[in-house]
């Protein structure tokens, strides 16, 4: 028995690790992907070490320094509480990345589960799950997110859940189709023949084989999730004061568009740059890992 396990492991390595290495090589070659990865790493560093880097805290109000224009002291100016916008943007990186990563992880987990069940077991259960995905995809997604937040109450965490929910069908469908195509392959049929249990087949064969498109799709989904979180924040349905969430900062700055445009420009640029980073990286990953998959 030990022998078969080893062979299986080896086969898995050939299938899974081989393309990874190769992928990394071609990823390295693409300057654009590297730039994307660079931006992402930059913001991750901000998110992790933000409190050490930022000149000021999240909520250091000084009403005598309201709405100051950018200067050497306050690089991005100050907001209506006299808080340093530069510092708040640095602190905000943590929030945006947190929402981006975790909402996607949540939708990947739930979506994969549903996708596997649908793809592996087929029949009526597949019909039901696929129909539910159809329904969710036909929903205007931002309205669905708004309704979910209205039910749960506006907070960052609930915005994260709402965003995760609207992305579930994307991953569910992806995994389902992958499962369907892998299911019929010889080694799966063989594994079944030697009496391997469904669960083990799923976790040792099918899932690893579906990871590449999920990683690619996941990276791009983080980008979208960050924008969606900002949009909900902008509508007042996401992070609450005094959290320096970028979308919320934009919403608070709306009324100063005329007099203090810097309060609007910089948070918007921060969102754009982060999202751009993830998009570039996702593109690069796709070209490197899965050249066939182009959408």
């Amino acid at each position: 028995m030990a022998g078969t396990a080893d062979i299986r492991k080896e086969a898995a390595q050939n299938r899974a690790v081989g393309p990874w290495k190769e992928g990394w090589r071609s990823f390295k070659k693409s300057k654009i992907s590297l730039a994307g990865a660079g931006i992402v790493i930059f913001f991750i560093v901000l998110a992790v070490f933000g409190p050490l880097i930022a000149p000021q805290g999240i909520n250091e109000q000084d009403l005598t320094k309201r709405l100051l224009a950018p200067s050497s002291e306050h690089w991005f100016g100050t907001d209506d509480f006299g808080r340093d916008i530069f510092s708040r943007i640095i602190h905000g990186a943590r929030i945006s990345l947190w929402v981006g990563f975790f909402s996607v992880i949540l939708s990947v987990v739930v979506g994969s589960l549903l996708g596997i069940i649908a793809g592996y077991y087929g029949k009526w259960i597949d019909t039901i799950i696929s129909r539910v995905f159809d329904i969710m995809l036909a929903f205007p997604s931002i309205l669905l997110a708004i309704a979910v937040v209205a039910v749960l109450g506006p907070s960052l965490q609930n915005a994260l859940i709402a965003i995760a929910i609207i992305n579930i069908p994307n991953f569910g469908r992806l995994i389902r189709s992958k499962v369907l195509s892998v299911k019929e392959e010889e080694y799966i049929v063989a594994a079944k023949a030697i009496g391997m249990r469904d669960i083990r087949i799923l976790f040792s064969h099918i899932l690893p084989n579906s990871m590449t498109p999920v990683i690619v799709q996941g990276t791009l989904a983080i980008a979208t999730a960050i924008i969606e979180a900002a949009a909900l924040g902008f509508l007042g349905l996401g992070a609450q004061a005094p959290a320096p969430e970028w979308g919320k900062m934009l919403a608070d700055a709306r009324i100063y568009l005329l007099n203090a445009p810097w309060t609007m420009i910089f948070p918007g640029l921060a969102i754009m740059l982060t999202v751009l980073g993830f998009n570039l990286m996702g593109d690069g990953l796709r070209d490197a890992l899965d050249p066939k998959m182009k959408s």
Partner: protein
Amino acid sequence: MNKKKLWSLGVMLILVLSTILAACGADNKDTGSKDTPAGGDSADSGGAKTLVYGRGGDSVALDPAVVTDGESFTVTANIYETLVNFGEQDVTIHPGLAKSWEPSEDGLTYTFQLQEGVKFHDGTDFNAEAVVKNVERWKAGGDKHPYFSSQFVVGDKQIIDSVTAEGDYTVVFKLSQPQAPFLKNLAMSPFAIASPTAFEANEEGLSTDPIGTGPFKFVEWKRNESITIEKNPDYYIAGFPKLDKVIYRSIPDNSARLNDLNTGGIDVADGLSPSDKASIEANADLQLIERPSMNVGYLGLTVTRAPFDNVKVRQAVNHAIDKQALVDAFYEGLAEPAKNPMPPVISGYNDGITGYEYDPEKAKALLAEAGYDGKEIELWAMPVPRPYMPDGQKVAEAIQKNLADVGIPSKIVTFEWATYLEKAQNGEADAFLLGWTGDNGDADNFLYTLLDGDNIGSNNYTFYDNPKLHEVFVAAQTEIDEDKRNELYKQAQEMIFADAPWVPLAHSTPILAANTKVTNYIAHPTGSDRLDAVDIK
């Protein structure tokens, strides 16, 4: 080869783009002149005067008897009229559709003499019979007429026992119990007189096709976009209205509305944020219009929840909050710090109360005395701007800091507006921001409505219930002697001050802005502005 082609393509693209831009530029010059005030007028040939009024939301319906929202009354106040009117900028009572009135000694009978020769927009005569039919409609409507139920029905008892026409122009109201603010109630927009011909034919029709006696007639309603009304040429007061047409445009977004005012898209912008004051004053083409204050913004402390079940903690919070700083920062000085639950313009205001001064040390001492354990509280921030609370989120942030300074940790929480009200109504909040704008300028409409035990579950969000206070309120409601009544309310304010269920924060002065060509715009404290005297230079 390829490179060359790309270059020529690029050049072509630039050429096309620049042509488009040039065309845009040309267009721009055209509109530039069109958008200027003078150009706008000349475009309407014949010197027709059109006023475009920008506001935050659309009306719900144009039948004042069935609605409760201010945006509906803003329009109906110019289409319909009431028997008696409020003063230009206060809540004193003046003749309206009734020339004069006479209350009986016991306050149970009111006899109104009506204006003669007034016609509804559909040609129906305005007379005593029309008034009777309107009142009977309100009485029969039950919960279809929410304002009538809240002002003229107590429990199941109708305050207006009967209305009878005596001759063509005399109407007699008989009350089942004296009601001190009876005339003030009648002056409220929901009690405007509509054409009986119209509502007898089709009651729902009034909502979309309003017919009153007012200075303006209804023309068109494009939902969520605009409502247009035009001059009533047969208006009974000669020389009015001055304007030929008024267009109410809904622009929900505050900044978008101000932008539109700056660029000439609208002539008047309502519901601006105090932070807009500076940019309005900086623009020579704009004037700032202040609406006299008749509101209160407050921080409610739910008295049934710990730690606010302890009066000392509530008093401590009152000492902890720097109201003056709030007013300076978020109201731009367009407010005065509050010490009572009702604004000073209302008769019965108790100026003798000193209020809780800002004193963090005293607050800390009171907290220690109360044995407060340092438990974190939830601080609820309003999700929508209201005249009494231009930015609930920001005020909450500042209060959070004030509370932290005296050792009360707090977490800011918010909900979508309808949820917020319901949850607060159920007593789920620890401390919450809220406010009130007076309906009829009567003390009862503030104190009893917001702080009596009767109103727990509706407008008394703090669950504050003081039986002695209740007795004072009941006595005041039926007291028709003005002085005695004011004394009772002063007494009530003292009791409320001692129990401190609220931190009264501010009485704000809401602002509007208008183009300088708009003259004679007078903003009314109730929020429904009559535009009959407004003119355009």
